[in-house]
């Protein structure tokens, strides 16, 4: 069943009807206008899982101007502050999903060519995708929106905050470095499907995947050189130099070479993991994260030595050959060997319970409570280069928080509120209370539309009747005798064919 999601998240994207229409749940649950300044919020009396400096039993959090202003103890707040009574509840940093395909208009894959680095997820962010809302309700505040895995070198990627209700332009995480997606293994070499009507696409082997990457970076290196040469000539006063053609495919690869763009590489098998690390070394670029990396546990030392992060699943396996040796101990084992590990979803539904998935690493591999929580908070923040702003509950960081009714590392925890930039974007109580109004609105619109349709039908029926009034009476009699479902029968049996034949 998960085979579809993994090999062909491409197919799933096709089926998602993203017409880009504003969703029913337009405003954040707090009701405050999105344009107004965020109120001062005081979260009272919660168990605070800071992630960075331990757990605070029964403490407060003060939020001002969208940032965490104070943590712990009993805090004072201005009279007009919004007070959230979190007695008995647990506050954690908002979950950061390091591998997500939500909020994309159209396919997440430019699956036609093997190097599709010219396309950019940021161009097609879809702020109306209901998955944003659902993942928000699962405690996710930031997501790394990635291109799919159909190509050895895929498209450019973007980190977003799940600011439900905001237009697409307001979703990207300000200042987060842009990324690019690579994919190794079965998917880019199309092991498990064929596309009819086209010749077999290169590469069809893992060897070819490597060469595709090497070839593209060789081209990018030369392209960079041609621009450097051109810039030098212009700087030295040359007037008539024609600049090199801008090549949108190679521009992002040059940025990778210059360390200005993160590489997120989908991979499974131990050999292809090492291959990419080797190629990166050859061309002098850094692989920021290995994604899925289900056999990462086999080469954990090598990954740690390369300083590359690993973002993996909790317990997915066996849907493809390259996933057959996946183990739920992957995250813990790699962590113990010094790799920075996060757990991700790759799936809108999975992202609604990443807290539970992180918890599994306590059972599988013996991570501590906080180590497990880090897998979906601080670690992915560091992997995405945004740890100065999110990933833990520290003064000065963004007020991106999730409030649970239970310790989040449990199947019984339910998100009560989710805050982003110090605004309550999800409030479970308010959401449940608001359902009746939405249902009523839907019902009213359906009735209105139905009435309109009936009116139009009647109006349409009137016209031919007006015409009939001109004609002779006998016709009208006939139409009264007719039953609605009867259709006029051609006079086949009468000899009424006339001489026109």
């Amino acid at each position, binding site marked *: 069943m998960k085979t579809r999601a993994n090999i062909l998240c491409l197919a799933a994207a096709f089926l998602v009807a993203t017409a880009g229409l504003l969703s029913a749940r337009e405003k954040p649950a707090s009701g405050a206008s999105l344009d107004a300044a965020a109120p001062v919020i005081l979260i009272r009396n919660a168990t605070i899982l800071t992630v960075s400096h331990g757990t605070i039993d029964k403490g407060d959090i003060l939020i001002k101007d969208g940032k965490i202003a104070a943590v712990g103890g009993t805090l004072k707040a201005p009279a007009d502050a919004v007070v959230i009574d979190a007695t008995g509840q647990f506050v954690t940093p908002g979950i950061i999903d390091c591998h997500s395909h939500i909020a994309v208009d159209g396919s997440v894959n430019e699956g036609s060519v093997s190097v599709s680095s010219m396309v950019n997820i940021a161009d097609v962010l879809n702020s109306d995708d209901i998955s944003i809302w659902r993942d928000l309700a699962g405690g996710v505040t930031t997501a790394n929106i990635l291109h799919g895995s159909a190509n050895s070198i895929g498209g450019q990627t973007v980190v977003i905050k799940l600011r439900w209700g905001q237009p697409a332009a307001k979703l990207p995480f300000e200042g987060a470095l842009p990324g690019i997606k690579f994919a190794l293994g079965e998917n880019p070499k199309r092991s498990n499907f064929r596309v009819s009507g086209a010749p077999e696409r290169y590469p069809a082997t893992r060897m070819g995947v490597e060469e595709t990457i090497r070839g593209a970076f060789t081209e990018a290196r030369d392209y960079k050189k041609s621009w450097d040469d051109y810039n030098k000539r212009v700087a030295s006063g040359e007037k008539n130099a024609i600049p090199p053609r801008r090549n949108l495919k190679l521009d992002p690869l040059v940025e990778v070479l210059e360390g200005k763009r993160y590489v997120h590489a989908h991979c499974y098998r131990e050999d292809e993991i090492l291959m990419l690390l080797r190629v990166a070394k050859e061309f002098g670029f850094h692989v920021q994260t290995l994604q899925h990396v289900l056999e990462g546990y086999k080469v954990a030392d090598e990954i740690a030595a390369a300083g590359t992060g690993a973002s993996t699943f909790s317990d997915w396996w066996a849907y493809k050959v390259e996933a057959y*040796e996946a183990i739920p101990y992957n995250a813990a084992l790699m962590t113990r060997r010094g790799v920075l590990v996060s757990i991700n979803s790759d799936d809108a539904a999975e992202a609604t319970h990443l807290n539970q998935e992180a918890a599994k690493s306590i059972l599988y591999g013996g991570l501590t409570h906080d180590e497990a929580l880090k897998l979906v908070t601080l670690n992915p923040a560091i992997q995405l280069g945004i740890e100065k702003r999110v990933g833990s509950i520290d003064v000065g960081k963004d007020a991106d928080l999730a409030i649970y009714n239970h310790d989040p590392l449990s199947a*019984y925890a339910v998100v009560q509120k989710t805050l982003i930039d110090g605004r309550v974007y999800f409030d479970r109580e308010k959401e449940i209370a608001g359902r009746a109004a939405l249902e009523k609105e839907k019902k009213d619109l359906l009735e209105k539309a139905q009435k309109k349709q009936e009116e139009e039908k009647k109006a349409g029926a009137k016209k031919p009747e007006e015409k009939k009034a001109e004609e002779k009476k006998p016709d009208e009699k006939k139409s009264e005798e007719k039953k609605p479902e009867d259709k006029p029968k051609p006079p086949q049996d009468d000899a009424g064919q006339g001489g026109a034949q």
Partner: protein
Amino acid sequence: MKRLLLNFLGAVLVLTLLGPGAGKAQTFTAGDIAITHAKIFTLAGPPIEDGTVVIHEGKIAAVGAGIPIPAGAQVIDAKGLQVYPGLFDPVTQMGLSEIGAVNATVDTTETGSFNPDVTAATAILPSSAHIPVTRASGITEVIAAPASGGFDSRGASNLVGGQASAIHLSGWTAEEMLINKHAAMVVDWPGIETRSFDFSTFSIKEKPFADAKKEYDKQVNELADYVEQARHYAQALQSPGTGFQRDVKLEAMGPVVRGEMPLLIFADRARQIRDAVEFCDKQKLKIILAGGTEAWKEKDLLRSKSVPVILRPTLGEPPEEDDAYDRLLTQPEELRAAGIKIAFGSFDNSFARRLGQNAANAIAHGLPYEEGLKAVTLYPAQMFGLDAQLGTVETGKTANLIVTNGDPLEVTTDIRYLLIKGQLTSTDNKQKALYEKYLSRPKAAR
């Protein structure tokens, strides 16, 4: 040709990979076993503190506090631990599929619309890596259901997909694993496909509703006709005339039309559920509903016809954009409160170990804890008529038990001891073995 070669190589790969994990997993101890000083959740009464379970010849011989331990019994001191019935996953492809993408390892769905005679037990691979992995999470028995939908079905639409078999997750051969070879007849209720993804052109194909509905009605009628045929065949079989020709397929429908074998009908949308229930009512066939994504829309009907429902994982996506985000999570309690018997199924093999987690999530959204636990133990056993042997910790039942360090539905709980058919079964599996192997990999040279 290339495809065949690929499949062959895939199969070879799989078989070599299966090697190491399999043998180690199935260690057995003969003789009586006594689990002592445990908190026993019998599910047939209040929990027993500091209790003992005595197992003799594969069955639970005694349960209680302060009961005598037979001489020579192997004693498992379960102080600080808990005993539960093993979990029962009533819809899986366990043993029928090894690697979803490799066709050679997938035997879930036959070709053709009517395959009542094919039986899951025939194709279950006892050494499948999925079995030790799944039971390590506390699942002791499952129903392996052919043609249960999904990607593995290769797009073939089976109206009658074959017979689901109930198996213990332990045994050297399928025969040793068998609980009930003919547990239920799988019916994949047709759907109305107005939009479908065409893999050959990699695009969405649209079909007008009227055409899709016609197609749907045609298939439902075909099913009705087939049942009619089977009835007549069953009758004729009782006193066959000369020249009567036997038909293995129609014959396989015999127990169904006689009301002995239930239909396990996969239906998710309201229309499908409604039509399936009304069909069985009219045809006087027993039905167990599997899927039930929109069961809440038809709960009155389901209750009035006493249809048991096996729900898909609660941690899935609601089908409609306007569905409440927690629709699937609140549905189990909504159905239970309406008087409908529910169970949870994984509908998978590699995700079967999430069975408890799915139940826990439903509990977190209103389902009473004991109901949630029973929905993965006693209720599926009852649905398949196996509650005389399974589903609770009671004397006389088969000793399929788990000894845990906590709530078996919680994601962090460890299964310390596993008993299947009264035998202590190792929780080792392929994944544990790989973990241990690479745990002890010496630090790589820089």
